[in-house]
Each structure stands twice: as C-alpha cells, then as structure tokens.
C-alpha cells in the first residue's frame, strides 16, 4: 500500500468561518497504480493532493504515505515525503532563470552524493525520454506550453520518486500536447512502477487511468 487515506477531514478557516473541504475521505492506492481524481472545482481535489504530498498539514483522520503518518507530522517527516514524491503542477512552475537541463537538475541537487556529471547525465537522459533532447539549454520562456510541461514531468521523474502527484497537468495545454504529456508520464511511470495520483477535470485524459475516483463536496463518490 503506497497511499492509505482513512476518514480524513480538513477545513479552512476557524471559528464560525470554518469551511469544511474534505469530509471523511477514504482512499487506498496500490504500488504502480494510476489513479485519476476528478470532480468539480472546489470539491477539494487539490487540497487532498497537497495533504498527500506533505505540503499541507492535516489535523485529523489518517494519511499514510509510504508508511509514514502525515497527520500531525513534523516538518522533517513532510520533507522526507516531498523528496520521495514527484510533484507536477498545474502551471509548469519551472524556474525561469534556469535552462531546461538546470531545472531538471534541481531535483538532483538535493542529493549531494551524486557528482555533477551524474546529475547532468541523468537529467539529459530523462529529457531525451520526454522528447526534448534538442532543448537542453533553452530557458522556459523559449519553450512551448507542452514542452514546458514535459520538462516539468522530467523534473518530477528524474529523482526516481515512488509517487507522482499531478495537479491538473493538462489544464494549460491544448488537447494534442496535453494528451502527449500524459502519455509520456504514463509510459515512464509504468516502466519504473511508479504510483501516479492525478487530479484533473479534463475528461480527455481519463483513458490513461487504471481507476477513476470522483470527489464531490469533500466526499469520494464512486470508487
């Protein structure tokens, strides 16, 4: 079991302004599974994803990711989970002052046991795998939307994470490049048996999933 969420409640605000977002969410995801979470805007999809990714602190219920309890966890525990998780953002969120290659290397620079050469080699290999072997030294602003998102996928995958969390990765892409990006993601993930949890309301990419889960008003509707 890679991700195990039990009876997770989460709300924003405090006192009378409390706005419950997640109301007793239960979901279990196996190793290597590709799960899509869909649902209307404001249904709590992104919130769920940020809690699983160790970006947001949940106070009750249980969220076990890679055998670590994230509810009421320490900052160090969350950092550990973040490092084993590849996060793909709605906007590509690349560093605009770094080239594609340097952006991908940022994931590897957290690990000082690699040499500069090894980092470069791994980054080049993964960029080639997403079809950008001729774009290593391009800055993000010189890349198309689809290319940027593929750099972002490469950046998430290069650290060989156990989990990929993707938040509407196709939202800012056209149908063609959106589908391409997700296909690449799926293919690379399957090769390395990486678990993928993907939040989207883009119905054009539902076909990549092993399983589709719908979140509505903070409750999982169909499993």
């Amino acid at each position, binding site marked *: 079991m890679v991700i195990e969420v039990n009876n997770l409640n989460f709300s924003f605000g405090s006192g009378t302004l409390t706005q419950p977002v997640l109301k007793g969410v239960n979901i279990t995801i196996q190793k290597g599974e590709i799960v899509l979470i869909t649902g209307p805007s404001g249904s709590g999809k992104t919130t769920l994803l940020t809690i699983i990714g160790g*970006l947001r*602190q949940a106070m009750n219920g249980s969220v076990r990711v890679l055998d670590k309890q994230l509810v009421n966890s320490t900052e160090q525990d969350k950092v550990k989970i973040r490092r084993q998780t590849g*996060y793909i*953002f709605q906007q590509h*969120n690349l*560093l605009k002052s*770094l080239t594609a290659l340097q952006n991908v290397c940022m*994931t590897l620079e957290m690990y*000082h046991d690699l040499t500069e050469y090894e980092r470069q080699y791994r980054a080049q290999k993964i960029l080639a795998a997403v079809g950008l072997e001729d774009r290593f030294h391009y800055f993000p602003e010189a890349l198309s939307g689809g290319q940027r998102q593929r750099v972002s996928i490469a950046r998430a995958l290069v650290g060989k994470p156990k989990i990929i969390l993707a938040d509407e990765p196709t939202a800012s892409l056209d149908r063609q490049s959106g589908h391409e990006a997700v296909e690449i993601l799926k293919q690379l993930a399957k090769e390395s048996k990486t678990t993928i949890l993907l939040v989207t309301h883009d119905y054009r990419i539902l076909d990549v999933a092993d399983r589709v889960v719908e979140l509505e008003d903070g409750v999982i509707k169909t499993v």
Partner: protein
Amino acid sequence: MNIFDTWYFPARLAWRQLIHDRPKLIAAISGVLFACVLVFMQLGFKDSLYASAASMPLKLDGDLFLVHQQSEAMWRPAQFKRSELMRALGHPAVAEVIPLYLSLATFKAMDTQVKRTLMVYGFDPDTDLLDVEAIKELKHALRLKDTVMFDEYSRPEFGPVGELLASGQNRTEVNDYKVTILGVFQLGISFAADGNIVTSDLNFLRIFPNRSIHDIDVGIIRLHPDTSIQQTKIELRKLLNDFVKIYTYEEILEHELLYWENAAPIGFIFNFGTIMGLIVGMVIVYQILFTEITNYRFEFATLKAMGYQHHYFVRMVFASAFILAVLGFVPGFLLSNSLYYLAESQIFIPMPMTVGKIVTVFVFILFMCAIAGLLAINRLKSANPADMF
C-alpha cells in the same frame, strides 16, 4: 554533505537568478557601488585630515615629549618651566633636551596685505628638531635676527610666497613684527592653523615680546642610542613633577589624533557620513533582495514542494547579498581609487589608498549586505507551497 556543497548549490542558484535579470542586477550593483564610493571618500577625507592635523608632531625628531598636563592639544598648549625639561638631563640615558615654543600669530600676506592667523614654531635651528630637509639646509641662516621660513602647504590666502621670494620680495610682518622670509619648506596644515612658519627660539621671543624664554610649550628629549625608551619614560616619571605628561613618539601622535577625533566634531561628521552611506546602500540592497524574493516566491514554493528546506533559501539570500557586495565593491574600489588620485592631484590633500582602508571598506560593505539579507529573509515566509497550489 560538506560545507562546500551546502553553500555551493544555493549560491549557484542565486548567481543564476541574479544574472538572469541584468537591469535589476546593474541597479543593485550601482547601489552597492554608491555606498562603497561614499564610504571610501568619507574615510579618505577623514584620514587625510587627521594625517594633516598631525603633520607637525609627525616630523618631530625626538624620543620622549613633555607637555603640560593642562594641554589639550599641541596647538593650544599650557606653558611650563624650562627648568622642568632641564631636570630630565639628570637621567643618564638622556642625551639632549630641546625646548619648543609655539603660538598663533597674524601673518601679513605680502601681496594683498591681508592679515591671517598661522602657527609659529620656535626652536634652536642647530638641533634639527623638525625632520624637514629644507629647514635643515637653512639652519645657519635661520640663526640670523628676524628670519623665518614659510610652509608652502599653507593655504593660498597667505599669498604665493614661493613666487614672491623668487621675485625678490621677502619682507613681511608676523605679529606686527617685521621679519625676512628665507625660504619655504613643506609640512602641512591642520585644523588649528591655516599655515605654518618656523623660526629660531630667539626670533620667536622677538616676535612675541610677552613670552619668556623660561616658559616652554613642548619639551623634546633625545636619548642615547641603545637605551630603552619605555624604561627611561618610567624612570623620568619619578624624576619629574606630576604636572608634565611624558609621551613617546607614538603616544604624542595618538594624543593629537584623538583630540581631533573626539574633542573636535570632525570625527563625528565623517563617521556620520560613513554610516549614512552604509544605510543608503543597505536599503537599496534590501529592496533588491526583497523584490527578488517576492518575484521568485512561486519558484521558492515549488522548490519547497520538491523537498528543499528553509535553510537552503536563507543561504540563497545570503549568497545573493555576498555576490552583490563583491560585484559592487570591485568597481566601487576602482572608482574610489581614481577619485583619491584626483583629490591628491587637484586639491593637494594626501589621500593614500591603504590596504587597511580597502579591508575596512570591504568589511563594511559585507556587513551592510549581510544586514540587508537578514532583513529580507523575513520575506521568505511568504513562500509557503500550501498557500500557493
């Protein structure tokens, strides 16, 4: 994970971000450069003014110096008895004692006839008390009645004395007493006096008829070679009355400098200028770092989501501050160097660029940027991934 790596990676990212936005980088460097030049100039003027304030004691050729304890500084001394100085001769290490008389007097400019105050030094010319070559050369002529020598470095208001001498004009009045100027020497002016003249002790008493040969201003003691100055100073202390203070050469220089630094507001003025320069520079660097963090906070949040920790960004901010300090200091130093040269050649103030000054300013600039970084770090808290995605 070693120290090098923990600083190298954030510093490299800081560098890449800085050079990515050239206009902003240039603005930041200009800010540091501005502060740098301001501090260099303030320190330069301060040091050169201090140096000129001590230009007379600097040239005194002696081992120990006696001044009255009521003397605040050499330019306004309290007199003490010549016999007190003679007492020092009782110590076996003392080779020679020389009385120095000094007083402010009016000097009538030879061309405009305008009277202006300058400092008159009187001592026996045979003693070579001032280590100035031009005075030593004319020491025999200086023994003649009513002769003086004039300091070329005096303010121009005293007239072009050198040129007038060359054209044969050499008579003027000091303290309304007619004297002949034998020649010029180079010493340097202080805050106390706009000019200097040197004369013999006997001529000094003629120029100042109300002064007595028995009341001296400074007593200079020369020791036999191979005797300990410190030891003699301690032993002389027991020999002499308490109302005279005994200084070594270094101590009397320091005493004069401290007077100008503390008693007069000069030190304060330049220190104030230095601090203002550093504050302006700090505000500029802070602004740059602050907007940098604000602009990049999405990227920082992204990096945090990838697993980077707060201390990485703290290092990044400090690395940015350090890079700006170095990039601003180098051109700032070069510019200041030329300005020092300009000051020396155009307004005749000695402004040496010493290693000590370079190190001092660099440390100031580093400190300034570090404080700016420290203030800007607060802004990092805005880069919270949970609030952004």
